[in-house]
C-alpha cells in the first residue's frame, strides 16, 4: 500500500480530520446509548462540518491548485483515489454549511421521534450517508464514484425507513429503492460505454465525455433520477416527507447538488459539441420547473410542498447548465461563465434557504405534531422569529429582491437574454425568449405556493388546538434559521462581489474565464438602501399617527364584512387558496371537485353538503402504473416456469446438460 499524501497542506489536513471525526462518530453510534445521545452525536456532526468548512475556506484562499490522494487500495478495477479541486471543493462548501445549520437544530427535533426509531442505527446511517456524500464528491474514477454513490443511496433508504412503524415510510423507502436501481443501471451503462471508448476509468481521461451522445444521455437521465427531474420526481414527494429531520433537508440541499456536480463534472467539462445535450437539458429543466411549482402549489403537507419546490429549483439550475452548454457551442465565453456562475450560485443559495425552510418546517412539526396545512394557522403570534425567518427564506426561494435567490435568477434571466440577442440561430434565440416567459410564469406560481405556505401556516387564526397551543422553537433552531435567512440576504445584496469568488470554479469547467463583475452590476445595493430608508420613515410616520390621542390604534375582531367573529373554519384553507389555479390546470393535475348534497328537498333545504376536491398524480397513474402492470404480466409468464415441482426442475437440469454437452462436442 502506498500513499501519496501532502500532509503539509492545511486544507487536506482539515478535510481528513473531519472525515476521521465522522468515522469515529459512525463507530461510536454502535456503542453509546443514553438520554443525551442526540446532543452528543449532533456535536460530533457539527465539529466535522465546521472543520470541513474551514478546509473549504483555506482551499479557496490559496486557490488554483488541486490535491490528489492516491492509495494502493483497489476496488477490484480501479484504485481508491481522491481528488480535490475548486469544483468539488465548492460543493463540499455547500455540504458543510448545510450540515452546520442542521446539526444545531437537530437534537430538539429528534426528541420528537422518541421511541419510534433506533437512535443508534439512525446515527450510524446518517454518518455513513454524509461520509459517502463527501467521498462521492471527491472520487476520481468511475468505480469509486459508483461505489460511494450506491452506499449513499442505500444509507438514504435506511434513513427513510428508520421511522418504519408508519406504513407511509415503508412505501416511501420502497419507491426510493426502485428509483435508485433505475438510476444506477443508467449510470453504470453510461460508465461502461465510456470505459470501452476511452479505455480508462478515470474521469480526467474522459475528455469531451459529453460529446458522445448515447452515454451522455444515459448519464444525464441516471443522474436526473437522483436529482428529481421530471418525470422521475415521483419518489421525492414520498421520500422527503417521510424521512426524519435532517435527512430531508440533506437530500434536498446536498444530495441533489451532488447529482448537479456530477453533471457538471462529466457532461459540461470539455464538452464543445453538446448542442443536442443542451436542448435535452433545457427541455427537461423547463418542464421540471413548471411541473414542480404547479404540484407544490397543490400540496397540503408542508414538507411535501417544500420538496416539490426543490424540483422547481433543480429545473432552474438545469436551465442554467443547458445555457452554459449552448454558449460553449457558440464560443460565447462571457455567457458560458455567467450561466455556470448562475447555476453554482443558485445551488448554494437554494441549499441555504431550503435548509432554513426545512428547519422551520421540522420545528413546526415538532411543536404541533402535524405538517398538514389544514390543521395549522396563526403561528405568527406564537413563533414570531420563526415566522420572520421563514418569510425571508421563502423570499429567497421565490427570488424576490433583495434575497439571494433573486441574484441567481437574475443571472439566469440575463444569460437567456444574452443568448436571445447573440448571433445564435433563430430557433435558439426564440427558445431563449420563450424560456424567459416560462420562467416568469413559474416564478409567479412559486410566489402563489409560498404565500400559501406562509399565509395558511403562520397567519390568520389557528385551525386546531395544537396549533393554538404552540410556542416558539428552541433558541438553537431559531439561530440556525436566522443564520440561513441573514446569509441569503447578504448574498443577495453583495452578489456582484461574491460572483468573483466563483471564478476559480468556472476556470476548471470552462477553458476561458471572464470577469463577471462588469456583467453582474446588480443594482440592488442602492435600491435596497433606498427602500429601507423609505420603509423606516413610513413606519415611524404611521406609528406617530397612531400615537395621537384622538386617532388611537384600536384592536378589534376581524371585520369580515360585518359577519362578526367567525370561527377559524370559515377562513381560507390551503385547498381553497389554490383552487382557482388548480381549476385552470385541471387536466394536468387531474383535479376534480365532487359536491354531494343530501336532504329531502336538496335544492332548497339541503341537510348535508359534502364537498371534496380530488387530485391524482398524473405521472404515477398514467406512466408508472401501466409500466408496472406490463412488468407484472411479463413476470407472471416467467413464474410459470417455476412451479415448485422437483420433476420439472430435473427436466430443466437434464435439458441444460444435453445442450451444454452437445455444444461441447461441437467445439
Amino acid at each position, binding site marked *: 500500500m502506498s500513499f501519496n499524501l501532502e500532509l503539509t497542506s492545511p486544507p487536506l489536513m482539515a478535510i481528513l480530520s473531519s472525515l476521521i471525526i465522522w468515522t469515529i462518530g459512525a463507530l461510536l453510534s454502535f456503542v453509546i446509548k443514553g438520554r443525551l445521545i442526540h446532543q452528543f452525536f449532533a456535536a460530533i456532526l457539527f465539529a466535522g462540518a465546521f472543520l470541513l468548512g474551514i478546509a473549504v475556506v483555506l482551499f479557496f484562499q490559496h486557490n488554483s491548485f488541486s490535491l490528489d490522494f492516491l492509495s494502493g487500495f483497489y476496488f477490484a478495477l480501479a484504485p481508491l483515489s481522491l481528488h480535490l479541486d475548486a469544483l468539488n471543493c465548492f460543493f463540499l462548501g455547500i455540504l458543510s454549511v448545510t450540515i452546520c445549520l442542521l446539526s444545531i437544530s437537530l437534537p430538539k427535533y429528534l426528541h420528537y421521534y422518541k421511541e419510534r426509531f433506533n437512535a443508534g442505527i439512525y446515527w450510524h446511517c446518517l454518518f455513513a450517508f454524509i461520509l459517502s456524500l463527501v467521498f462521492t464528491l471527491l472520487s476520481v474514477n468511475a468505480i469509486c464514484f459508483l461505489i460511494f454513490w450506491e452506499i449513499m443511496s442505500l444509507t438514504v433508504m435506511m434513513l427513510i425507513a428508520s421511522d418504519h412503524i408508519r406504513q407511509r415510510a415503508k412505501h416511501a423507502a420502497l419507491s426510493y429503492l426502485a428509483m435508485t436501481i433505475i438510476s444506477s443501471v443508467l449510470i453504470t451503462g453510461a460508465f461502461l460505454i465510456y470505459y470501452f471508448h476511452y479505455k480508462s476509468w478515470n474521469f480526467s481521461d474522459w475528455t469531451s465525455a459529453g460529446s458522445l451522445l448515447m452515454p451522455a444521455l444515459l448519464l444525464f437521465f441516471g443522474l436526473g433520477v437522483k436529482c428529481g427531474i421530471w418525470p422521475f420526481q415521483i419518489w421525492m414527494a414520498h421520500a422527503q416527507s417521510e424521512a426524519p429531520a435532517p435527512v430531508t433537508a440533506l437530500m434536498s440541499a446536498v444530495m441533489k447538488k451532488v447529482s448537479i456536480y456530477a453533471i457538471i463534472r462529466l457532461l459540461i467539462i470539455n464538452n464543445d459539441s453538446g448542442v443536442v445535450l443542451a436542448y435535452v437539458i433545457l427541455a427537461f429543466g423547463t418542464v421540471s420547473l413548471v411541473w414542480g411549482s404547479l404540484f407544490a402549489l397543490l400540496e397540503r403537507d408542508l414538507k411535501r410542498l417544500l420538496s416539490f419546490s426543490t424540483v422547481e429549483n433543480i429545473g432552474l439550475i438545469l436551465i442554467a447548465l443547458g445555457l452554459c452548454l449552448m454558449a460553449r457551442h457558440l464560443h460565447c465565453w462571457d455567457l458560458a461563465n455567467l450561466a455556470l456562475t448562475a447555476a453554482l450560485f443558485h445551488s448554494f443559495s437554494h441549499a441555504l434557504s431550503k435548509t432554513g425552510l426545512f428547519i422551520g418546517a421540522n420545528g413546526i412539526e415538532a411543536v404541533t405534531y402535524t405538517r398538514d396545512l389544514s390543521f395549522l394557522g396563526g403561528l*405568527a*403570534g406564537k413563533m*414570531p422569529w420563526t415566522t420572520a425567518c421563514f418569510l425571508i427564506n421563502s423570499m429567497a426561494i*421565490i427570488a*424576490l*429582491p433583495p434575497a439571494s435567490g*433573486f441574484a441567481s*435568477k*437574475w443571472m439566469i*434571466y*440575463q444569460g437567456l*437574454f444574452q443568448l*436571445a*440577442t447573440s448571433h445564435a440561430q*433563430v430557433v435558439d*434565440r*426564440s427558445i431563449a*425568449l420563450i424560456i*424567459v*416567459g416560462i420562467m*416568469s*410564469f413559474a416564478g409567479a406560481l412559486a*410566489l*402563489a405556493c409560498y*404565500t*400559501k405556505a*406562509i*399565509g395558511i401556516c*403562520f*397567519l390568520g*387564526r389557528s385551525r386546531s388546538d395544537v396549533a393554538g397551543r404552540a410556542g416558539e422553537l428552541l433558541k438553537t433552531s431559531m439561530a440556525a434559521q436566522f443564520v440561513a435567512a441573514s446569509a441569503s440576504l447578504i448574498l443577495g445584496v453583495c452578489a456582484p462581489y461574491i460572483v468573483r469568488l466563483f471564478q476559480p470554479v468556472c476556470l476548471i469547467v470552462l477553458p476561458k474565464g471572464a470577469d463577471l463583475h462588469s456583467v453582474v452590476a446588480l*443594482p*440592488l445595493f442602492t*435600491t435596497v438602501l*433606498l*427602500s429601507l430608508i*423609505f*420603509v423606516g420613515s*413610513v*413606519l415611524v410616520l404611521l406609528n406617530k*399617527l397612531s400615537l395621537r390621542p384622538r*386617532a*388611537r*390604534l*384600536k*384592536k*378589534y375582531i*376581524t*371585520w*369580515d*364584512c360585518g359577519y362578526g367573529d*367567525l370561527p*377559524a373554519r370559515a*377562513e*381560507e384553507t390551503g385547498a*381553497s*387558496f389554490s383552487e*382557482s*389555479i388548480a381549476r*385552470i390546470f385541471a387536466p394536468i393535475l387531474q383535479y376534480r371537485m365532487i359536491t354531494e348534497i343530501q336532504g329531502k328537498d336538496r335544492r332548497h333545504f339541503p341537510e348535508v353538503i359534502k364537498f371534496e376536491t380530488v387530485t391524482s398524480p398524473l405521472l404515477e397513474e398514467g406512466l408508472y402504473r401501466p409500466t408496472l402492470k406490463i412488468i407484472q404480466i411479463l413476470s407472471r409468464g416467467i413464474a410459470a416456469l417455476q412451479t415448485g415441482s422437483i420433476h420439472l426442475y430435473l427436466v430443466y437440469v437434464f435439458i441444460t446438460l444435453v445442450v451444454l454437452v452437445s455444444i461441447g462436442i461441437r467445439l
Partner: protein
Amino acid sequence: MSEFFLTTGKWLSFGLFIFFLPPLMVGVLTKCKARLQNRIGAPIFQPFYDLGKLWRKGETVSQTTSWIFRGTAAINFSVMLVISMLLPWLSFKPYFAHADLILVIYLFALTRFFSVLAALDAGSAFGGFGASREVTLAMLVEPAIMLCLASLGCLYSTTDLNTIFTYDRVCTATQSALWLLAGTGLFLSSLVELSRMPIDDPTTHLELTMIHEAMILENSGPNLALTEFTHYLKMAVMWGLSAQCFLHALCYFVTINEFGRSLASLIMLLVVLIIVALIEGTAVKLQWKKVPEFIAFAIAMSLLCVFVVIAKS
C-alpha cells in the same frame, strides 16, 4: 455646481409628479366615467380629499393580525416609490442608474407578495378570496409583462430601461410596430394587474367578486390611505409605461423636442385614461372563468412582440 442644482430641481419636480399625479389621474378617470354616463360626477380632486380624510381618521386593526399586516402598507409604499423612480413612466423622469427590467418586475412581485400575505393575515374569508384570485391573475399575466419588456430589451440588446426608453435615436417602421404591440400588451396586462374592468369592478359593492378591494378589506385609517395611494401610484406607473410605448411608436411619424415630449407624455397618459374610462363605461365585468381568455390577448400580444424581435434581427 449648476449641474447639481439642475438635477436636484429635476428630482424635486418629479417628486411632485409622483405624489400629485396619481390621485389626480384617478379623479380624472372617475370624472370621465361619470361624464360618459351623463352624470356630473365628483370633482377631479376628490381622491385627495378622500386620502386626507382617511389619513386623519383612527385605525382599527384585527386582533389576529401580526406585524406583517401593518408593515405591508409601509413596505409596499416604499417599494412602489422605488419602482416609480426606476421605471420610465414619464419622459422627463430624471436619470436613475441601474433601472433593470428584471429588477422592476420582481419588485412588483415583492409588493404582491406582501399584499397577499397581509390579506391572509386577518384571517377573513374575503381577504383569502381576494388573495387567491390575485395570485392566479399574477401567474397568468406575468409572462405577458415579462415578454413585452424583454422583447423591447432584445431590440436594443440591453435590459437597462433607461437605454431602452431613450428618445435620441431614429425609429424604423418595424421598431414602431414593436413599440405599438408592446404598448398594447402592457396596457392589457395593466388592466389585469390593477384589477380594473373587465377583470374586476373597482366600484362594486359585492365583496365576493372583488380582487383588490377584497384584499384590503380589513385596512382602515392611515393604513388604508397609504395602501390606496400605493395602488394609485401603481396605476400611474403602469399606464404611464404603456403611454410611453405608444409615444415611441409615434416617433416614427413625428419628431418632437424634449419639452414637447414631456407635454406629449402627459397628453398620452390622458388618452390612456380616456380609453380606460371608455372600457369601464362600456364593458361588462367578465365571469371569473372567462378571465384567462381575456389574458390570452395580452399573452398573444407579447408573443407577437417576440416574433417581431426574433424575425427582425
